[in-house]
């Protein structure tokens, strides 16, 4: 029992730390290596390469007709449905990406070397800065049609959802227990069968948890991606996001209220109808045989399991699924191959290295050629300086949020009745994008002539602070009872209780939340450093505002530079601060 006691704690922890960010962090490397460099170059080479295509495309788009957004709330259900469909389309795309990309990365030693660093870089790139550019790119694929705009919005949401899901699957595939793998191989399951019978079920709990996080994160991008302004042109798709944008434009406070309400309803609906049943269902894929603390089955799952019609439908779908996934596609393991494959061929390695080197070299050439064409060193210096401003903002606000929320979250986490109610509320709050709070801030700043550099700053953590809240609540709730009893028995109280008992106990949870919050805050700065309410526009100094302005002016070179600098900041942040912190937390606070 004693040794067992520490283990469930760790397991529960790993349940809540299935975020992409920490998956990246658990990979163990701290300093960038040659593969990271190749990854960075490849990502930016791709971006720059595509950016060449874009300027020409602008011209054609001028005539594109887009919907007029009505602020009448009766239109909202329709807009909400459109937005929700977009989010689920993006989720489907993310799943497809996850199953292909993460699987390839986990199965191929060579691909893994490049693909995982690429994923890490992609995760750090503030895609929000590229919104305009991806929109224009997709619209140029479908000139004169709204399909391009739809695809662009879906792509933007996809970029906010896919990376952590892919990391989650990759991590699960890499940590598959050896005995299960051996069992699958000894029964000669083909690679296809093994994937669906063993690997996907094993990865399911983590994957579903990450899908939930991704849906929350996606809202931020919905609001930004449905209404795009480049220079004088504005394109709008029918949806909650463009409804919000229109309301902001027309100073319609009622509209903002209705949009918040609609979002709340949508979030509540997909949470109740989809994610709660999915989470409960996925718990059967947990490998530990000991039953965890199980809550009541969600009502939807009950309905599906107990009504005859739903059961019949479910059985049908399940039967078809199990037929397809049971096909003997792919190759069965053969003894000879398994042994021969172990060494890997030297020639293959060399060829692979040459290809990676060639891609990297081409990327360097592309980037240098593109950036030197329009920008000089002074631009880099300016971007870096603005990056420092934004970094100060992020750090300061994270510190404030920590000081404010950690004690409250611990208090809540130690009271199960409260934690049960507050936890979903915090996850709910995390989904609300900063744009919705623009009116309050802009009006206050304009009315009282406040300094935007200071007073716009809170917008950065408005959505992201909740990640700290719900992770710390989870940490405090999982804090072992016997350790609390020790503290009480030895009458440890006051500051000593925080310092010696509680803070170290929640530290890994805090770091998990802080990583997500910090990454999100950088991304949010692009939206939060420039706020507008009708004709009033307030702007702070920072890299986010730099990117937002460059975007509005259609200055692609500056967008690329700004995003590159921001990615560099985020990457260095992750490698220099969060990764060592997380490693330390895991090393020190578990008995395993």
């Amino acid at each position: 029992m004693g040794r067992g006691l520490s283990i469930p704690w760790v397991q529960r922890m790993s349940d809540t730390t299935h975020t992409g960010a920490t998956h990246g962090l658990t990979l163990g490397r701290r300093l960038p290596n040659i593969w990271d460099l190749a990854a960075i170059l490849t990502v930016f080479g791709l971006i720059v390469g595509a950016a060449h295509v874009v300027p020409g495309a602008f011209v054609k788009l001028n005539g594109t007709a887009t919907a007029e957004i009505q602020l009448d709330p009766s239109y909202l259900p329709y807009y909400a449905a459109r937005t929700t469909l977009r989010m689920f389309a993006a989720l489907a795309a993310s799943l497809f990406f996850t199953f292909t990309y993460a699987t390839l990365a986990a199965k191929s030693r060579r691909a893994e070397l490049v693909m995982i660093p690429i994923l890490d870089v992609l995760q750090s790139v503030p895609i929000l800065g590229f919104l305009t550019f991806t929109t224009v790119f997709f619209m140029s694929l479908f000139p004169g049609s709204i399909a391009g705009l739809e695809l662009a919005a879906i792509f933007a949401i996809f970029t906010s959802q896919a990376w952590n899901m892919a990391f989650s699957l990759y991590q699960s595939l890499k940590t598959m227990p050896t005995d299960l793998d051996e069992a699958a191989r000894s029964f000669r399951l083909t690679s296809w069968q093994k994937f669906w019978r063993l690997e996907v079920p094993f990865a399911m709990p983590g994957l579903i948890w990450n899908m939930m996080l991704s849906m929350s994160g996606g809202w931020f991008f919905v609001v930004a991606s449905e209404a795009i302004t480049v220079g004088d042109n504005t394109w709008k798709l029918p949806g909650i996001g463009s409804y919000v944008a229109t309301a902001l434009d027309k100073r319609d406070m009622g509209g903002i209220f209705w949009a918040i309400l609609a979002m709340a309803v949508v979030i509540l609906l997909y949470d109740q109808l989809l994610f709660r049943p999915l989470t409960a269902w996925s718990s059967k894929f947990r490998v530990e045989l000991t039953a965890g603390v199980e809550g009541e089955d969600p009502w939807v799952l009950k309905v599906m399991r107990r009504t005859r019609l739903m059961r019949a439908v479910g059985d049908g779908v399940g039967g078809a699924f199990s037929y397809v996934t049971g096909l003997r596609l792919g190759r069965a393991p053969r003894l000879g191959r398994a042994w021969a494959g172990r060494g890997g061929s030297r020639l293959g390695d060399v060829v692979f290295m040459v290809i990676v080197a060639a891609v990297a070299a081409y990327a360097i050439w592309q980037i240098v050629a593109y950036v030197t064409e329009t920008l000089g060193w002074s631009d880099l210096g300016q971007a870096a300086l603005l990056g420092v401003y934004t970094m100060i903002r992020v750090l300061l606000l994270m510190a404030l949020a920590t000081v404010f929320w950690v004690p409250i979250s611990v208090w809540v986490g130690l009271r199960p009745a409260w934690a049960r109610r507050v936890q979903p509320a915090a996850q709910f709050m995390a989904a609300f994008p900063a744009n919705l709070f623009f009116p309050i801030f802009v009006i206050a700043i304009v009315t009282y002539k406040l300094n935007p550099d200071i007073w716009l700053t809170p917008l950065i953590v408005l959505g992201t602070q909740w990640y700290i809240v719900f992770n710390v609540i989870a940490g405090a709730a999982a804090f072992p009872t016997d350790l609390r009893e020790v503290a009480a028995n030895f009458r440890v109280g006051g500051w000593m209780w925080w310092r010696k008992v509680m803070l170290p106990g929640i530290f890994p949870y805090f770091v998990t939340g802080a990583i997500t919050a910090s990454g999100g805050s950088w991304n949010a700065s692009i939206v939060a450093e420039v706020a507008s309410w009708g004709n009033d526009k307030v702007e702070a100094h920072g890299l986010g505002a730099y990117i937002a302005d460059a975007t509005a002016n259609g200055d692609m070179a500056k967008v690329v530079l700004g995003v590159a600098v921001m990615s560099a900041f985020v990457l260095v942040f992750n490698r220099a601060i969060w990764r060592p912190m997380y490693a330390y937390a895991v090393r020190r606070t578990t008995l395993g």
Partner: protein
Amino acid sequence: MDTASVHQTLLQVDNCRQAYHKDNNTDLLVLDNVQLTLRESEIVALLGRSGSGKSTLMRIVAGLLRPTAGDVRYRGKPVTGPFDGVAMVFQSFALLPWLTVSENVELGLEAQGVPKAEREKRAEEAIDLIGLGGFETAYPKELSGGMRQRVGLARALVVHPDLLLMDEPFSALDVLTAETLRTDLIDLWTEGKLPIKAILMVTHNIEEAVLMADRILVFQSNPGRVAHELRVPFAHPRNRLDPAFRKLVDEIYAVMTRRQPGTERVTAPTPAAAFATPLASVGTNLMSGLLETLAAPPYEGKADLPALAESLQLEVDELLPLGEMLQLLRFAELEEGDIKLTPLGGEFAHSDLDHRKKLFATTLRASVPLIASIRRVLDERPNHRASAVRFRDELEDSMSPEYAEATLRTAVAWGRYAELFVYDEEADQFELEEPEEAEAAD
């Protein structure tokens, strides 16, 4: 005996009652009317099966839990919360993983505000006393289970408590390590090297209690109360093989297997009480195994429980529920520390699988009202299905939700083995076999 009363009373528990409140106003009694007196220079063991409330009582003594009713006094003063005179050793060790051995040991001193220099000196003494010298800077995860529990002991001893509380301190350790720790602790105690006045320990290991304690309180479950109190008259060091030692162990087995007044319901049940007989989670394989063992030489149908426990490497905590369930199913009888095979049990042991299942089904329907009732409901229903919820609710009227769940799980396992019904976990309902037929019937 008289010398004991000369010693000062350290701690006094009177009429202690602990109940957990339930929604439907039926309180669940965990402890009922418990008396406990602890005097200086004695080791007292609370012996009982899991769920008998002995750990709850220990937490009440430590001031970690407030009793529903009753009076707890430490040196005459009422206990209202954790106080300086006690320190606890946990079954799970409960070391803070982020503190080193010496930091863990210093925890209690730091909380008392002892200056750093003295803190370090006392921690060093405790660490050396308990045999941890050289491990001061290690983190708990670098230590083996035995070493971790030594840290737990040092941490408790360093605050010089009057009363040392130990909650199943050795049950998470392997046999050899546990024995080493026990003898080390008893040696230090008899040599007077421990800075404590008395020890209260919780255990479910009869031999451990007889080996260490001066006084043993045997707990009875459901609700927990002191069923029996006995003195251990042997001087330390004690010899497990001493006939007097063995005799005492046998006696305690007899006490623990004795049918307690109020649990006679097995023989003369009221319908409601019989329905709600708690079923211990004892698997059919384990039952078959024990029946076969009993039927075979050297036992030939009758075995002495302590000897059986030793040869099968089963703890009382495992053997007693097993015996009781066999008794419930009329396969065996428990009597004064012995277990005796009934003719039915003998027949079971010598049958093949099919016949065993038949015997099992018959005896289940005859002796386990819960299972009989599930089957009856299924037979009566036209669609031969019944939700498990109603049975769980009915059980919860007279036992805690955890007990109800465990009982129902056991019923499911037994019913499945006997092929009396099937259980669909996802739908949480019982069904008769051949669901296709049932489908057609309605």
